[in-house]
């Protein structure tokens, strides 16, 4: 299925006409889940018919597998993920003191792999990294998003908020033009959601696969004809910090289903 530029161009005019965004009031916040049909919600809710669970199960297997020169499994250091990883994904990205900047969950997992397991790095968006991320994030399913109150994150979060408001691409649209000012309206065939990062990594029917939040953000950038930031780029992590702050208190859904 190729792009449908007419839909986007048509809407660019309409959307840009709307005045600069006010934040969505807390009472009006809706996960993308709530905008889906009952059929897709059922697909997400029932873990035995949710295709995202295949990655979670893969991740569970990888968690147990001794890896790298150290020959230690994730479980060897972290034990039972149900306990040690509970709530962890809900408070990422977190500040990494050694790097002097925020790191997202996939970045933290990669770090453990290369530095602690002394294993080959897992590329962003590889099946194995997605599976481990999904498995770890699944331990937070149902828990509220809980962004850390770490002052060192503040400048990065502020930069994410600014990016979110900045018009980009040939269509000259900001994230906020769609997700704050026009959520619930239709763009082409899809309903514009509020851009809450509650479900990642998630199974997107369009991808027919599990994908990360960064992949989703890159899709939106390509959608407005902007050059997307590279996977792992600091800007994507800053955007994630902002999105997580906007969604504070909302329930984690990993692995969610989205159209």
């Amino acid at each position: 299925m190729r792009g449908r530029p007419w839909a986007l161009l048509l809407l660019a005019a309409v959307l840009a006409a709307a005045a600069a965004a006010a934040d969505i009031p807390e009472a009006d916040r809706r996960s993308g889940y709530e905008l889906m049909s009952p059929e897709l919600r059922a697909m997400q809710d029932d873990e035995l018919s949710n295709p995202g669970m295949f990655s979670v199960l893969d991740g569970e297997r990888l968690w147990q597998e001794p890896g790298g020169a150290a020959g230690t499994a994730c479980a060897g250091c972290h034990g039972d993920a149900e306990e040690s990883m509970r709530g962890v994904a809900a408070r990422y990205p977190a500040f990494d003191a050694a790097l002097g900047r925020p790191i997202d969950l996939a970045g933290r997992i990669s770090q453990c792999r290369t530095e602690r397991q002394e294993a080959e790095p897992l590329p962003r968006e590889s099946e194995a990294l997605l599976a481990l991320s999904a498995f770890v994030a699944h331990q937070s399913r149902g828990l509220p998003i809980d962004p850390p109150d770490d002052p060192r994150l503040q400048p990065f979060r502020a930069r994410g908020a600014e990016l979110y408001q900045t018009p980009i691409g040939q269509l000259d649209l900001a994230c906020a033009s769609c997700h704050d000012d026009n959520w619930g309206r239709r763009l082409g065939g899809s309903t514009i959601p509020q851009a809450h990062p509650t479900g990642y990594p998630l199974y997107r029917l369009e991808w027919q696969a599990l994908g990360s939040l960064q992949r989703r953000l890159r899709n939106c950038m390509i959608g407005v004809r902007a050059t997307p930031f590279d996977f792992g780029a600091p800007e994507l992590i800053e955007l994630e910090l902002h999105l997580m702050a906007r969604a504070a208190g909302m329930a984690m859904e990993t692995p969610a289903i989205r159209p």
Partner: protein
Amino acid sequence: MPSEPTPRLAYDRPPLDEVIRAFTNGMAVRTGKVTLDLSPLVENGNAVPVKVTVESPMTEADHVRRIALFNERNPQPDIAVFHLFPGAGRAEVATRMRLATSQKVAAVAEMADGGFWMAEASVVVTLAACIEDLI
């Protein structure tokens, strides 16, 4: 005036009624007994939930043998053929299918007595807005 031949759909696949006729071997198909549960509007055609239920006691003497699902406008008309047996309790099958575009879907049931029953439903398939293969 001779009538124009009906133009073939894209991909030159056979039209839906022809596909159904091939499945029933030309036997008559009645509308009824079959319920096709399908949302009239789906958000993405890559995994469209569908449920087919046929009125049948599912006994040795009176049961559904096969249920076929066909589409009208995919490159190929077949979706699935389900084989059912007495003792199933209900003649009910659910699955997820791909629909390339808005179109009709048909479910045709073959009964133990050799009769055919069917139901049709129309689906509007919306397309995802922000996808990655634009370039």
